[in-house]
C-alpha cells in the first residue's frame, strides 16, 4: 500500500502508477456529478455542445452535497459520497469522452467501468461512505455551480480541494477491481459460514 498525493490536472502516466489498495489524496479541481449531471453531460457531448468546464485530468465526485449560501458564497456543509453503481451505465462513455482521471464514490463500480478505466487510464477512489464532514473540510472553496436547475444534490458543483481523501484505490487502470475481489472472497467465506452455522447451502 503506497500513499500518493496528486494535483489536477492528472496525466494518464501518473494515474497508471496507482494500484488497488493504494491511498490517494487529491489537490486541485473536482466536480460533483450524480445520475442527472452524467446524463446531461453525455447529451451535450452527443449534440457537440461544450461542457461548462473541461473535465480533462480532473476528478469526478459522486456526491449530492449540502451547501449553504452565505452572501454570494457557497459553503459546503456536508459532502460525502453517494452509491456509485447508479452511474455504471454512464461512466465508460464519460471517461472516454471527457478524459476524467479519477472517479470518486462509494460502493464500487462494475465490469464496464473497470474496462473503460483500463482502456483510457482512470481510477476509482473509494471515499468513506458517510464521512461528509471530512470531505467538506477538504473543500477549500466552491468555484461555481453549474446546472443548478437539476437541484442542489444533482447539480454540477465545481470545487477546489486540498488533500481530498483518503481515497482507497479500489479500481486501478490495470483491470483490477478490489470490490470484485472482496466479493469473490466473500462467496468463498459463505460456505465456511454455512458450515459453522450447520446450514446446507
Amino acid at each position, binding site marked *: *500500500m503506497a500513499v500518493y498525493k496528486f494535483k489536477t490536472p492528472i496525466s494518464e502516466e501518473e494515474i497508471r502508477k496507482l494500484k488497488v*489498495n493504494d*491511498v490517494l489524496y487529491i489537490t486541485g479541481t473536482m466536480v460533483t456529478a450524480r445520475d442527472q449531471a452524467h446524463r446531461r453531460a453525455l447529451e451535450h457531448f452527443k449534440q457537440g455542445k461544450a461542457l461548462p468546464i473541461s473535465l480533462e485530468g480532473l476528478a469526478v465526485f459522486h*456526491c*449530492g*452535497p*449540502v451547501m*449553504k449560501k452565505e452572501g454570494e458564497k457557497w459553503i459546503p*456543509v*456536508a*459532502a*460525502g459520497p*453517494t*452509491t456509485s*453503481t447508479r452511474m455504471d451505465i454512464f461512466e465508460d462513455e464519460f471517461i472516454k469522452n471527457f478524459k476524467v482521471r479519477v472517479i470518486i464514490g*462509494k*460502493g*464500487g463500480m462494475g465490469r464496464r467501468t473497470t474496462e473503460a478505466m483500463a482502456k483510457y487510464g482512470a481510477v476509482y477512489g*473509494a*471515499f*468513506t*461512505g*458517510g*464521512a*461528509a*464532514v*471530512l470531505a*467538506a*473540510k477538504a473543500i477549500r472553496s466552491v468555484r461555481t455551480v453549474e446546472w443548478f436547475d437539476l*437541484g442542489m*444534490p444533482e447539480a454540477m458543483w465545481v470545487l477546489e480541494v486540498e488533500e481530498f481523501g*483518503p481515497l*482507497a484505490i*479500489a479500481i486501478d487502470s490495470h483491470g483490477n477491481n*478490489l*470490490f470484485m*475481489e*472482496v*466479493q469473490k*472472497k*466473500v*462467496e468463498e*467465506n*459463505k460456505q*465456511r*459460514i*454455512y458450515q*459453522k*452455522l*450447520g*446450514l446446507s447451502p
Partner: protein
Amino acid sequence: METANIVEKVGFNLLKQAVIYLPEDVKHALQKAYAEETSEAGKTQLKAILDNVELAERHQAPICQDTGTIIFYVKAGAGVKNLDKIEETLTKATRRATVEVPLRPNSVNPFTQKNSGDNTGRLIPYINWEIVSGDSIELTVMPKGGGSENVCISGMLVPGEGIKGLKKFVVDAVIRAGAKPCPPNILGIGIGGGADISIKLAKKALLRPLNEPNPDPEIAELEKEIFEAVNMTGIGPMGLGGKTTALGVHIDYAYRHPASYPAAVAFQCWAARRATARINSAGKVEYLTHRMW
C-alpha cells in the same frame, strides 16, 4: 410553558443532537473495531470514520450528508394531555431543523417526484406510537439514511426450517448488501407477528444500545452467533475487506402464525443516529442519549 412548545423544542434538539453526535455506544464500538481491524484497507476506512465523527462534533455539522428520513418513536404516558398535537408539533420541529441545522431535504412525493424541501410530507416525519402508563413522554428520533434503508428486507421463511432458516436469511442478506449500506452496520432482526410486524420490530431493535444484549440469554446467544457469522464474511468496512462488517446484532420477536415465519432484517449504517429525551409532567426535560445537552 405549553406542552406543545416543549415538545417542539425537544424535537428540534433531538434532531440536532442525532445528526451531529453519534451515541457513545456507537462511538465506542467504532473505536474498538478500529483497534481490532487487521485489514489495511478496512483500517483506513475506520480511521476516516472516526476522524469524521470528531470533525462533525467540532464543527457542529451533520456526520453524514444524508440526514435521512425523519422517524420518531413516541412513548406517551396515558395521562399526558394534548397528545393529538404531538404530530403537528414534531412536524414543525422537523421543518425548523431542516433550515437551522441544516438537514438535507429528503422527502419526495413518490408520484410527482417533487421534493417538499422541508423533510415533511404525507406521513413524514413518521411517528411510531406506544402508549404506556404514567404521565411523561419519551421521544426518540431516528434519522434513517437511504443507503442502509435500501437493503432492508423482509421475507416469509419456511416455518419447518426454524432458526436455521433465519440464520441463512440474515447471512445471505448481509452478503447481498455488500458495500451498499456503508458497513460496518448494525443489524436489526425482527421475527414473527406478520410481514409488517417483523420489519417494524427489526427497525425498532436498532434503537437498543450496542452494549445491551437481548435480556433473554438464549436470544442474546443467537445475536452473538449471527454477529460472529456476518463478521466472517470478509466484507469489511465500506466493503473494502476486513473483519468488521457488523457492529452489533439486535433481535426482537412476536409470536407467529403456525403456518408463517415472517422475518426481517433492518440495516443501520455506521452513522447510527438516534437521540432520546424524556419530558415529565412538570415539563422537565431529560436527555437520555446525549447527556451533555
